């Protein structure tokens, strides 16, 4: 299982390194969205819950772009058939794809969050960085799990690009609620407010529930 997952991850990362299909697009989208929010809200700098909302909505919509592309190569280049013919555990594909999406999200945030701080954020986030990282990691995990499941569900439909966002966005509302609520006090101007740890609990619960659920049902999406 571990070797299979590693091989699948290696394949996807190599594919991304050669084609640059997902991460640059997600990144461009995020930065463009920040610019749009600047003009849409007509604000030079944001703080507190407004900043946290803008950041999370942007990251979520950027993640949807990644979900849309996640299984396209499998579908169009016969990757599903190849994988099904190999004598390996089918859950390996789920784990590998979730890890890849998680890695994509981290890569995007590595640039998008600093860009957000420079472009839109009023206070610095130096002192609140560890808390922000914890929120980012837990939220990315949830987005990666749900995104992989919905990506696999949607890629076989005829209206892939429509169906995936329509299904994924309502499912990810709890992630946005928890992540935005947890981030808002960190971005207050004039020093961070106390960090609401219970939202990390909500994120962790969400990740655990959907992780188990996806683990249980993913096999059924691959049967031929």
């Amino acid at each position, binding site marked *: 299982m571990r070797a299979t997952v590693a091989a699948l991850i290696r394949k996807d990362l190599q594919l991304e390194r050669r084609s640059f299909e997902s991460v640059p697009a997600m990144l461009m989208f995020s930065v463009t969205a920040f610019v749009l929010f600047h003009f849409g809200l007509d604000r030079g700098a944001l703080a507190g819950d407004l900043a946290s909302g803008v950041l999370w909505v942007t990251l979520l919509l950027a993640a949807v772009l990644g979900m849309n592309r996640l299984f396209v190569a499998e579908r169009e280049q016969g990757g599903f058939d190849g994988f099904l013919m190999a004598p390996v555990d089918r859950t390996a594909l789920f784990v590998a794809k979730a890890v890849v999406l998680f890695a994509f999200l981290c890569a995007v945030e590595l640039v998008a969050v600093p860009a957000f701080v420079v472009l839109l954020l009023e206070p610095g986030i130096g002192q609140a960085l560890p808390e922000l990282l914890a929120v980012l990691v837990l939220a990315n995990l949830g987005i990666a799990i749900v995104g992989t499941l919905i990506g696999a569900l949607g890629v076989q439909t005829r209206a892939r690009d429509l169906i995936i966002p329509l299904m994924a966005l*309502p499912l990810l509302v709890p992630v946005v609620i928890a992540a935005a*609520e947890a981030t808002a006090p960190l971005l207050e101007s004039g020093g961070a407010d106390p960090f609401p740890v219970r939202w990390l609990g909500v994120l962790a619960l969400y990740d655990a529930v959907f992780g188990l659920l996806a683990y249980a049902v993913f096999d059924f999406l691959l049967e031929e």
Partner: protein
Amino acid sequence: MTFGRGLRALSIASAVLITGAFALVFFWAPNDADQGFVQKIFYLHVPLGIVTLCGFVAGGIFGIQHLRTGERAHDLRSYVAIHIALVLAVGVLITGSIWARASWGQWWVWDEPTLVSFLIVFLLYACYQPLRFSIEDPERQARYASVFAIVAGAFVPLNFLAVRMAESLVHPRVLSTTGGAMPGEMRTTFLVALVGMACLFVTLWKYELASKSASIQLRSLKRRLAGDDGLAPLSRSAAPQQL
């Protein structure tokens, strides 16, 4: 597959219960001291909401059974449960809006977690039919729809938890919908309305199942008589077309 069993008894029971519930609402239950007559929409709105959410979860449970056993009848059950719940959900949103307008003065209130969670669940389930519609292979359609029904069914309680947490610590709950503080007459009326609504849901569900399975069987009989060429091709549909 006979889905029509017990349909007559169920129909009579739900007709009696729903009529009885409305009679109780209009002639027996007291007017709310605060909100007056308009509060009586509560006896329609809340049972409808509860039954709708149970219908969504039931769709998920039938989805699990479909994936476990591979029987297409479970997929049909799951589809019809979600389909009817979706229709009732529109009613919940409309009655909820009317009530909100009457008692809070606004058509929509973001502070009320139950309202917001319900909208999110509704938006999620609104994708169920498009998802089915856009998968052509019937076997895959059934399988994928079951996966969606399971995931969404599990999402219902989790979503309510998250949205309630986001609001309830800032705003106290304005209304307790569980009826803990209701006087006896109101509670009896509410319970009758709830049972009546549940009965109505099951009746509608069985009617739709019977109708769907009858047309599926009719089609297979026609095929046996006339052969594949004698049948008009199936138009694409979100509903299961085979058993």
